[in-house]
């Protein structure tokens, strides 16, 4: 695979169930080689449906996709893809190692890779135990091990932290960071926006099956702002609204939040002091991905 070619290219992909449910609506997306790509959206947004289409588990109603240079579900493409879609699914009566042997047999890869993958996910000591006896965290890690034995160029992880306790989340977070640290491309669907913010190069947000924002994490977070605490509060608000416009000023937790470039802090401070207002705090306010996500998806939800 060439480094300039997108590992995943989705064009006008749609999936309709019956007449009334449009799970994915003309989705366009590209994931580049080597990047860790966050795929975000509220429950029912169409994330899992999209990932299942990319893996060939379900067929699109219209549109097309290319994954690892092949059509979804093509054995040659699947050879290069490791995946975890929703809950990990293995044979409960088999041990962790036996389950990986089954997975390796299907993939046509040697069993010699199994112990390395078990070690990578810290499951070697429990490899002989039956899958049914594993905790949720161990099941998730076994699913990651099943993906790793293929030494994949692309990892597709759908909510890998679902159902995990805090300890499990921490373990999975560090595992995902390790997976994405090399040359490997990772497509990560997750609700943990803080993790996505820390680990992903680019993100896409979908809602009601439609792409509503895509870009680098900084691009999606958008322009940062300023937080001002001043006295008198109402006087400060009035002065700032006159200066910046009403839409740029909002009251949050006893402070004023300004949607302006942080570089304007000195001008704003001077204007407030000039108007006889005492400024007790003036600092840049970073927007989190979570704020943007909630803002976008709530707006989209209301529009729908």
């Amino acid at each position: 695979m060439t480094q300039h070619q997108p590992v995943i290219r989705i064009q006008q992909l749609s999936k309709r169930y019956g007449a009334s449910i449009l799970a994915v609506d003309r989705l366009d997306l590209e994931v580049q080689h080597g990047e860790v790509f966050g795929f975000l959206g509220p429950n029912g947004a169409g994330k899992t449906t999209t990932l299942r289409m990319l893996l060939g588990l379900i067929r699109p109603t219209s549109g097309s996709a290319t994954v690892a240079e092949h059509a979804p579900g093509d054995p040659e493409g699947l050879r290069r893809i490791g995946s975890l879609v929703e809950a990990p699914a293995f044979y409960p009566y088999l041990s962790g190692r036996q389950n990986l042997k089954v997975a390796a047999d299907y993939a046509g890869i040697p069993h010699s890779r199994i112990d390395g993958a078990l070690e990578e996910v810290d499951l070697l000591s429990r490899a002989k135990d039956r899958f049914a006896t594993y905790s949720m965290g161990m099941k998730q890690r076994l699913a990651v091990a099943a993906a790793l034995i293929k030494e994949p160029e692309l990892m597709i992880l759908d909510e890998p932290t679902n159902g995990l306790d805090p300890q499990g989340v921490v373990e999975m977070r560090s595992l995902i960071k390790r997976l994405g640290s090399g040359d490997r491309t990772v497509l990560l669907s997750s609700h943990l926006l803080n993790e996505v913010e820390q680990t992903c190069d680019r993100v896409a947000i979908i809602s009601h099956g439609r792409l509503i924002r895509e870009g680098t994490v900084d691009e999606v977070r958008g322009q940062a702002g300023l937080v001002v605490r001043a006295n008198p509060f109402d006087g400060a608000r009035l002065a700032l609204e006159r200066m910046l416009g009403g839409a740029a000023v909002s009251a949050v937790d006893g402070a004023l939040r300004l949607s302006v470039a942080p570089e304007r802090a000195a001008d704003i401070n001077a204007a407030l002091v000039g108007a006889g207002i005492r400024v007790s705090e003036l600092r840049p306010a970073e927007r989190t991905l979570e704020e943007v996500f909630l803002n976008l998806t709530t707006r989209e939800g209301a529009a729908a």
Partner: protein
Amino acid sequence: MINSLKAEWRKLIRRPAIWWLGAFILAIVPLVYTFSWIQYNSPSFHPDSGATLAQLKAQLYPANFAATMVAGLSFIGGALMLVMGALAVGSEYGWTTFKTVYTQRPGRLQVLAGQLAAVSAISVIIVAGAFLLAALSSFTIANLAGAAIVWPALTEIVKALAATWLILEVWLLFGMVMAYLFRQSALAIGLGLAYMLAIEGILFRALSGFHLSWVTTVEKFMVGQNTGALSGSFQSGFRGPTPLISAEHALLVVVAYALGFVILSGILVRSRDVV
């Protein structure tokens, strides 16, 4: 295909349910021989099938073990193989493991081919094991009775073995296709057995009393009637009237059903989403 077969074999051979079903089928053989022998030697036993006691006892001797097995194993073995087929496929839906399997690498039809090969190999082992146990049981009974040890011709044994395997295989495939159809094992087993016992077993027997020509025509093409006819063709004539379906016709229909079940499974596997 070989990789899928290896994976399917690894799964099935370690699955307790497969062992239980196989063990149950095998256990039936010596038990039926033993209880039949005890029954035939009971002073209160009187044959009511038109056969003499000597003929019935002769069915338990080595000369007849192959023919006895075809008739004895076809129905109960078929029902248990239907359960096995439904479990082999339906559990994959229950555990949602098809998504793990299909995303590893193999094409869906390759997975199906591996599955078919693995369960068919298991049914061969079970049938061969049952014949071996039947041979041992008949040998023991003949020794106890002081009867001559005469074995059937090898060709007869092979024909009986092949027919038994085919009958069990078609029910196994029926269980599999039902599980693919309903995407679960419980409904596949329930409806599969209900069809086998109620529709084929009871309904046609009841309808045959009306001597309707269309019923007879339909009956000639039903899977259960043909597996019954195929197994019945190995029996000597004292069991009943001239059969409705010839052995050759039954063989063709059973093979056609087996192929039909495989093709239908392939269509379902290829065309359906894995959700």
